[in-house]
């Protein structure tokens, strides 16, 4: 498992997602190595890449570094990605930085991000199948998906455009719920983990279950 550029994409406690994935795997007896890739490091081949949120300049640098790395090839070969906020934008065709300048993304999905009229700051809740995804968003992006499937339907907050949030491909989960989204939503962490190992998982009871129930109660009213 590889956390990509926490120096650049780690504004909102996003490093927590790597920690959560590794811990949930280890507690089920799955052997995991968690690595953080810094600005000067080469991107290693990994089963799972995690990308967080970042500010304009660092986001642009992260996109440039990833463009030159093996990352695109690894994902085409089936590596999984959990991408949050700036990470969500970088994987797309273009995103917006420093005012309204369009910057070229990695083009791995059809998402296009422009600057929203207002910044979206606040609680975010997204209906994903039978589950509710709960979290917090803080971004200026407005993302259109072309034909890409969204991750889910927004019930509170803005997400991509006030209607849907993020996107989902066979091996990519992307959302605007930043920071420790996988800590707050243990079901999502286990969905990604289960897909990685190719078998269903036994439930794991942790404090996160209590937290998830509480946030659902607060946000699903």
């Amino acid at each position, binding site marked *: 498992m590889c956390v990509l550029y926490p*120096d*650049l994409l*780690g*504004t*909102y*406690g*996003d*490093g*927590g997602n790597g*920690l*959560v994935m590794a*811990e949930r795997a280890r507690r089920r007896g799955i052997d995991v190595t968690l690595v953080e890739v*810094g*600005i*000067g490091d080469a991107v290693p081949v990994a089963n799972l890449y995690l990308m967080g949120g970042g*500010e304009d*300049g*660092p986001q*642009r*640098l992260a996109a440039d570094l990833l463009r030159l790395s093996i990352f695109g090839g690894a994902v085409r070969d089936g590596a999984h990605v959990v991408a949050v906020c700036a990470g969500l934008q970088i994987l797309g065709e273009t995103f917006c930085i420093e005012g309204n300048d369009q910057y070229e993304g990695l083009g791995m999905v059809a998402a296009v991000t422009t600057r929203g009229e207002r*910044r979206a*700051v*606040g*609680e975010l809740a997204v209906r994903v199948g039978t589950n509710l995804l709960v979290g*917090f968003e*803080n971004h200026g992006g407005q993302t259109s998906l072309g034909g890409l499937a969204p991750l889910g339907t927004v019930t509170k907050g803005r997400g991509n455009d006030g209607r849907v949030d993020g996107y989902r491909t066979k091996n990519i989960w992307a959302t605007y719920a*930043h*920071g*420790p989204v996988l*800590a*707050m939503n243990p079901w999502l962490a286990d969905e990604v983990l289960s897909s990685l190992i190719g078998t269903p998982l036994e439930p794991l009871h*942790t*404090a*996160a279950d*209590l*937290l998830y129930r*509480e946030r659902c109660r607060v946000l699903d009213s």
Partner: protein
Amino acid sequence: MAQGSKLRHVVASGALRAVNALSRWSGRGSGTVAGGRVGLKIAPDLATVLTKDRTVVLVSGTNGKTTTTSMVATGWGGEVTTNQTGANMPAGHVAALVGGRSTNVALEVDEAWLAKTARTTDPRVIVLLNLSRDQLDRANEVRQMAERWRTMLTASTSPTLVVVANANDPLIVYAAETSARPLWCDVPTTWLADAVSCPKCTLAISHVGTSWHCSCGFAKPLAITTTLRDELVVDGEMVELELAMPGEFNRSNAAMALTALHAVHVELQGAATRINALQSVVGRFSVRRWRGHSLQLLLAKNPSGFASMLATLAPNEADVWVAINARIADGRDPSWLYDVPFELLRGHTVYCLGERRLDLATRLDYAQVAYEIVDDETSLPSSKATIALLANYTAFSDWLARSQA
């Protein structure tokens, strides 16, 4: 000044006093912000009028604002006009300026209000402590703050303004380097996670020993104030620092407060003696009683503050209480808990308190730290030893209010 305008300021100051007296008398508030708002409504330029012919020192930064402002005020000696209650926006400033008579003024300023406050109060000194992630739901991104400060200092036309700035924080150096008279302070600064990538060119900053530089040429400036173990040197003069308050971060705060006082010609040895004797600042670091427990209240409201505070805990302290809220004054988003190195608490048992105790418990669980979720505070186990209670902003206020000296 025109007669009508002068009258307006007299009326504004009078109204401010009246509202604050009423607010304190009715027990509805501590009596600072409400009156300040009324005063500013009547005379929007009240701060400018009230700071005329006064020597103003402004203090801003993510962590240490209140403590450093208190150190400036205490170190100055005699009566100093200051906003001790932490009301650090314009309404709080004018209330303090009306309330205090001294021509020596030390004001704590919220980061987002610094540019405006600097325009209206004609400060002699601005102290810039540090910049790191804090309340991102309100201030958005920390680099934008550095950019705004840089714009403010580039545009300043004051012939006397001195900027006392932390040379070890690249974001602060970026903000202050265009000012005409920077006084750089080489003080311990542990949290650099927000300045790993260069604020000028976004490439990686190299840290070598106590120095740092980027390949674009941006680098640590030469400092006038340096700290070496217990010794502090300000502009060539050696000063003994033996603070009553704990923590390396307080040594940094004291060094910057003394540099600011040096800039307004306060004699350093006397100032240091007064700062050394400070025991606590608005309850921070104070030992309090609560239901038979003895608690040391430690304010920690963001990753950098928490990291510094965790480093002050004795390794053998068995129980630690941590209280976390996420009200507006705390920032509504507790994601920052994942940027705090809670792994340092392995070996302790942490009692999780506050409205967001489940967020904290989840964080501790993943950090493999033993924890108890405290839904019923009467169930907390008693202890003979003084317990460290770390709390973020509103949780700290709650615990200060419910405990006794």
